[in-house]
C-alpha cells in the first residue's frame, strides 16, 4: 500500500515543494529569523480576502508565463526569453492603444492582437536560428531578450515618455483603452479570462490534436519524430510563435490594466517569467497542471512582500525557493532510477 502511494505521480512534485520549503526554513533559521512567522506571513499576505483580487491577477500572469515556458518545453525546448517577449507585447499594446486613435470598442482587442503578433513573431525568430544556424533555442531566446528589453526601455524613456515626469513611464492610456475590469475588482480583468481561455486551448491542442501529439513525440524522442516524418523545424516555429504570442498577451494585459501605462521595468521586476518557468517545470510541461503549480508560485510571489513587512525575511527568498524546487526536480531522476532498480530486485 505504502509502496503504491509512493509511486503516485504527484509524489515527486509535492515532495520537491515540501523539501524546498524545508530548505527555505533552514535558510531563514540560519539568517536568525523565524521561518514559521515568515511562512505564515506569506500565506496571510497572499490569501487574505482583501488581497485575493490582486492574487488572482498575479496567478493569471504566472499561468500565462507558465505557458510561455511550457509550450516549447513540450517539444523539449527551453524558452528563456520570456522577459523580452513580455515587454515587447506590453510596449506594442501601449503604442496601438495610445497612438492610433482607435475608438473604444476596438482599441483593446486591437492592442491585444497586435501585441500577440509582434511578440509571437519575435519569439519565432529563434526557430530558424536553431534549425538553419544551429544556435540552440535556449541561447538565442536569452540573447534576444535583453535586446527587446532595451528597445522598449528606450521607447519609454524617450519618444513615448510622459513629459515632466521623473519616472521612466508613459502617460496614462485614454479611458477607452483600459481593459474591462470584472465587476468592481481593481486588478482582476477580462485579461484573466483570456489567459484561462488560452490555457484551455493549449490543453485541447496538446491532448486532442495531431499537432499536440507531434509536439509531444518530438519532445519524447526527436530522432524518432524525424524518422516518422515530423518536421521539428516547423514545430519549433509554431511552438515558439505561440509561446511568444502568449507572452505578448500577458504583457499587453499588464499594460492595459491598472495603472494603465507602461512603466520601465514594471513588467520584469515582479519575476513572472521565471515564476512561470518554475511552474511549467514543476508541472512537467503538462498543460492541465500548470494552473495548479502556478498557485504555489503565486502565493510565494504575492506573499513575499508581506513576509518582508511582517517577518523581516527578504522577499528574495521567493527566488531562492524557486531555484531550489527546480534543482530538486532535476535531481529526482536519481530517485526514479533507484526505484526502477528496486523494482528489478524484488
Amino acid at each position, binding site marked *: 500500500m505504502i509502496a503504491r502511494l509512493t509511486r503516485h505521480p504527484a509524489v515527486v512534485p509535492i515532495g520537491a515543494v515540501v523539501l524546498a520549503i524545508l530548505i527555505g526554513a533552514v*535558510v531563514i533559521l540560519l*539568517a*536568525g*529569523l523565524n521561518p514559521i512567522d515568515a511562512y505564515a506571513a506569506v500565506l496571510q499576505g497572499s490569501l487574505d480576502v482583501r488581497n485575493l483580487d490582486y492574487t488572482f491577477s498575479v496567478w493569471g500572469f504566472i499561468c500565462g508565463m507558465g505557458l510561455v515556458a511550457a509550450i516549447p518545453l513540450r517539444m523539449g525546448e*527551453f524558452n*528563456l526569453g520570456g522577459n523580452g517577449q513580455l515587454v515587447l507585447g506590453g510596449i506594442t499594446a501601449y503604442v496601438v492603444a495610445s497612438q492610433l486613435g482607435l475608438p473604444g470598442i476596438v482599441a483593446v482587442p486591437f492592442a491585444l492582437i497586435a501585441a500577440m503578433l509582434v511578440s509571437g513573431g519575435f519569439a519565432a525568430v529563434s526557430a530558424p*536560428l536553431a534549425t*538553419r*544556424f*544551429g*544556435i*540552440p533555442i*535556449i*541561447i*538565442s531566446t*536569452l*540573447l*534576444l*531578450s*535583453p*535586446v527587446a*528589453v*532595451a*528597445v522598449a*526601455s*528606450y521607447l519609454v*524613456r*524617450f519618444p513615448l515618455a510622459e513629459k515632466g515626469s521623473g519616472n521612466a513611464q508613459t502617460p496614462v492610456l485614454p479611458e477607452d483603452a483600459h481593459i474591462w475590469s470584472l465587476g468592481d475588482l481593481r486588478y482582476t480583468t477580462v485579461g484573466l479570462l483570456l489567459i484561462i481561455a488560452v490555457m484551455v486551448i493549449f490543453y485541447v491542442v496538446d491532448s486532442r490534436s495531431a499537432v499536440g501529439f507531434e509536439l509531444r513525440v518530438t519532445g519524447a524522442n526527436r530522432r524518432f519524430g524525424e524518422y516518422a516524418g515530423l518536421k521539428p523545424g516547423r514545430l519549433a516555429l509554431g511552438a515558439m510563435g505561440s509561446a511568444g504570442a502568449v507572452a505578448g498577451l500577458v504583457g499587453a494585459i499588464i499594460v492595459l490594466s491598472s495603472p494603465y501605462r507602461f512603466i520601465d521595468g514594471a513588467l520584469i521586476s515582479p519575476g513572472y517569467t*521565471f515564476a512561470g*518557468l*518554475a511552474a511549467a*517545470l514543476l508541472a512537467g510541461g503538462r498543460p492541465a497542471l500548470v494552473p495548479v503549480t502556478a498557485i504555489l508560485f503565486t502565493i510565494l510571489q504575492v506573499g513575499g512582500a508581506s513576509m518582508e513587512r511582517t517577518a523581516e525575511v*527578504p522577499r*528574495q*527568498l*521567493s*527566488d*531562492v*525557493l*524557486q*531555484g*531550489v*524546487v*527546480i*534543482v*530538486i*526536480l*532535476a*535531481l*529526482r*531522476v*536519481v530517485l526514479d*532510477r533507484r526505484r526502477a532498480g528496486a523494482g528489478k530486485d524484488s
Partner: protein
Amino acid sequence: MSIFEWSFVAAVLTSATPILFAALAGALCAQAGVFNIALEGQMLWGAFAAVAGSYYTGNAWAGVLVAVLSTAIYSVILAVGAARWKADPIIIAIGTNLLSLGLTGFLLRVLFDTSGSFAPQGLDGIGTMPFLKGIPVIGDVFAGQSVLVPLAFVLIVAAGLWLRLTPGGLRLRGVGEHPDAAATLGIGVARYQTWVTILGGGLCGLAGAQLSLGNVTLFTENMTAGRGWIAVAAVILVANKAFWLPVACLGFGAAEALGFRLQGIGAPQQLTDAAPYAITLVVLVIMRVVVTRRRTHALTPKETLV
C-alpha cells in the same frame, strides 16, 4: 598611437576578462561533454562571495580565495547531478542560476542590510600592476588592470596546452568525444566530468571576483547581467577551437567598451545594454554561415549538390 586608443584597448580587456574566465570554464566542460549553462549563476555567486570575503577579512585576495572555493563547492550541485547522476544539466543550471540570484539578494539584505548595491567604504579591490607603468604599450594597457587579467590569458594557454599535450587532456577530450570508447579504455567518464565541472566552478569564481573586485569594487544585485550567457555563446561560437575563445571574448569586450564610449558622446544607455547581445547573436549567425559554407564546399562533391 595616442593614449586614448590604448586606454580603449585597456577597457576592452577589462570588459572581456570576466567572460574569458567563464568561457574557459564552459569550454573545458564542453570538451568533457558537459553542457554547462550554469556559468551565469556561478559567476554571480563568485562576485558576491569575493566582495563578502574581502569585506570580512579586509583582504582582496582572501575574497578571491573565498570566491573560488565557494563557487567550486556551489558547482558540485551541477557536477554531481549532471555527471554522476545523469540529471538534465539544463534544468539544474536554470535552477542554480535562479538560486544564485535569490541567494545573493537574500544575503545582501541579511548580512549587509542593504538592497540593490553594496559598496562599503574601503573595500579592498584586487591589486593593479603599477610596476608596468612607463613601459610603452604594455604599461598603457595593463598597468591599471587587476592581476587577474593576465592570469586569464595564462590560464587559457595553459588549458589549451594541457588539452593537447598531456595524457589527462587527451582523456578529457576522449570523454567528451566518445564516452563509451573512453569507458572501454578504463577511463572514469563520470569522474572526469565531475572534476572538470567543479574546476569550471572555480574558474567562474575567478570570473565573479574579477567582476566585483577587479573591474569595480562593489557588488550589485544581478551584476553579471547576462555575461555568463555571453560566455556560453562564446563557447558555442568557437565550437572545438579553443584558440578562438579569447578572440570571441575580446570581441564581446570591444562591444561593451565601444558601447560605453558611445554613451559618453550621447548615445542612449539602452544601446550599450543591447549591443553585446545583439552583436553576439549576429556573430553566431555569421560564423555558422561561413563554417557551413566551407564545410559543404569541402565535403560535398559538386555533382551531388541538389
